[in-house]
């Protein structure tokens, strides 16, 4: 069964509007792409859409209550909300270092979730 979809390409800032006819993830026809990168983008959007996910996790004993985190690579789009709830359950202890995994192999995806910054431990008597 052929289907058609409108996809906006985000490979570059031009943002071409693509009209794609496809059948089980295979592209039959594509229009509107100014360059051939649009075809690759449309294919990945139809077969396996992924996004970088950024959020925060709770921190114990840190100078800040939250640690910003990001997926090491683009994460499968259909599982993003499951990942967000898993990260909402998580609490990590300071000190933390930029690039340190806070959740390894998230939801079995093979993708780690990493700290986006250093977060020092809070001192007993803050030196202000």
């Amino acid at each position, binding site marked *: 069964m052929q289907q058609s979809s409108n996809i906006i390409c985000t490979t570059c800032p*031009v943002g071409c509007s693509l009209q794609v006819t496809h059948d089980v993830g295979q592209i039959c026809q594509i229009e509107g792409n100014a360059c051939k990168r649009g075809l690759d983008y449309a294919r990945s959007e139809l077969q396996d859409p992924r996004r970088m996910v*950024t959020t925060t996790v709770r921190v114990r004993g840190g100078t800040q209550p*939250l640690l910003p985190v*990001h997926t090491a690579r683009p994460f499968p*789009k259909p599982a993003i909300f499951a990942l967000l709830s898993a990260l909402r359950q998580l609490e990590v202890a300071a000190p933390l270092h930029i690039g340190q995994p806070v959740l390894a192999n998230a939801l079995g995806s093979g993708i780690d979730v990493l700290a986006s*910054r250093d977060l020092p431990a809070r001192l007993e008597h803050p030196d202000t």
Partner: protein
Amino acid sequence: MLPQVVDVLVVGSGPAGLAAAVAAKRGGAERVLIVERDREAGGILQQCIHNGFGVELLKEDLPGPSYAQHFIDQARRLGIELLLDAMVLEVQVPFVAHAISRGQGYIEVQARALVVATGARERTRAQIRLPGTRPAGVYTAGMAQRFVNVEGFMPGKRFVILGSGDIGMIMARRLTFEGATVDRVIEIMPYLTGLTRNYVQCLLDLEIPLHLSHTVGRVIGGSRVEAVETVQVDAQRRPVPGTEEVVPCDTLLLSVGLLPEVELLQTLGAALDPITGGPVVDQSMQTTVHGLFAAGNVVHIYDLVDWVTEAGLLAGTSAALYARGELHGGLQHVAARPIHVRVGNNVRYVVPQLLDAGCLSQGEHKIQLRVLHPVEEPAWVRVVAGNEQIVRKALRYARPGEMITVVMDSKAVERLRLGEELTVSVLPR
């Protein structure tokens, strides 16, 4: 013990301030001090937890806090001093800065050169004259971003966002990720004002409707927002009667533009550009006050942090030269006969607004601009002096949301004459 006398004093530790300090130190300034009013360095980047930072300059796609840390680490390695939780209250010319900090009380710092990198403030409800009642639950998008990403609490459950700029769209996604409902994003202009990538990843992906040519007619609610009335606008941005719709929500976020934070520059006597709201600067990021430099969103509102860093590096390098007495020209020198850069067809503003005599001996200069109206077809940016074309650049399109940069290379610079006017225009190709 803090230095009482520094070569370069930087106000603000966001991307512009950090870059300025790093460049000043590398440029030979021995003592460089940054004063920051927040409890940690990094500025607004610390609350911009989304990725997309650094692609141009660092060739890496980083979250905001990672981008900030890259430059915080550099500053630390270079031995730049950082005074946190401290506010510069006033600066006298030549520079004596008066600051207060929680830890150190009142501080006086003398500086040979000063870089103001104080960023911008968000436009608030008062500045857009939003009618209706005045309940709790009306926030600027950046304020809400700080609540959610740094302080750790949600300012509401059901949101309407006014403004399709990048901060507005990014907050729409962020709030949805944290379990809130974003009913819609509304935009007064007939086009998206942020980046297409953000429209796709923040609104389309999460099925958040975008209503173009719409605005908030009034806010409804007693002690808390209960709804907003949206209304369609015509080409002149006037409400169209009969198009009103009451949208229930408990929070309205405003993402309606940023205003350069220029109070310090004003008290120092720097001339301001009425369009950007920031200081008039020359090709070295020097303001009309000798030795006073500015960089980042305090000069004009950037689209990408990479270009903020670039401007900060330029300001810092120039400030170090000035501190050593090696920066020539200076806009106060009438004899220097600066070159004025003016806006032409479909150009809202240009930066720098002036080129001083020193520009002729330097290699190349960048002119940055924004267009007034979107052009969705190939266009030229042309820089002309009288009838002579100095430089032109081909564009595939021109949109108000994306800054345009034109490089005047050394050949173009050779064509410049002191005292003349340059006009920058965007025209169909």
